[in-house]
């Protein structure tokens, strides 16, 4: 079973089906990969400016909309200067 239990209470980065990047503490999940994130924020990437952080709070993200859940390495994340990153937003999954 590709368990998410290992990620509970860790900071995770979630990529959603519309291409958003959401970072928060994983508190819970279920079989359909519905997910509960506490203290989360969205990282908005742009080609012209640095990454913008938008605070969100406590979220449930429905599993249908989840592409990927990454375990965020706090050390590596601290060493990244988000204001210097320029990148296009991630595509949505229905690109055709």
């Amino acid at each position, binding site marked *: 079973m590709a368990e998410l239990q290992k990620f509970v209470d860790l900071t995770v980065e979630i990529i959603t089906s519309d*291409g958003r990047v959401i970072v928060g503490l994983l508190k819970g999940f279920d079989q359909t990969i519905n997910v509960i994130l506490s203290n989360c924020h969205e990282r908005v*990437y742009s080609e012209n400016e640095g990454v913008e952080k938008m605070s969100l709070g406590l979220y449930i993200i429905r599993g249908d909309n989840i592409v990927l859940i*990454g*375990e965020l390495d706090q050390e590596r994340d601290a060493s990244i200067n988000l204001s210097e990153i320029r*990148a296009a937003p991630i595509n949505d999954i*229905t*690109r055709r």
Partner: protein
Amino acid sequence: MLFYSFFKTLIGHQVTVELKNDLAITGVLTSVDQFLNIKLDDIRVVDDAKYPHMMAVKNCFIRGSVVRYVQLPASAVDTALLQDAARREAQQPTTGGAHSISR
């Protein structure tokens, strides 16, 4: 369940998963489940200049429904065996697999 069993034999190998949003991620396959959700360790985004979004992520869980391709090392696959198993599966499919969830 055929491909679930097939992917289980690939645990420990390095694979590249291409997603429907065009993101491609290389990593070691550590886990797979009945929905073909995939866990990869030690990941590297294929075009990391274009996708710096995951610079701080070393391990990830990928939802099976968003996978477009899984690129495998040819040496890790017994294609004759796989072909054989698939032929048998086509003749008499086992349970509906992931579709048999009741809602």
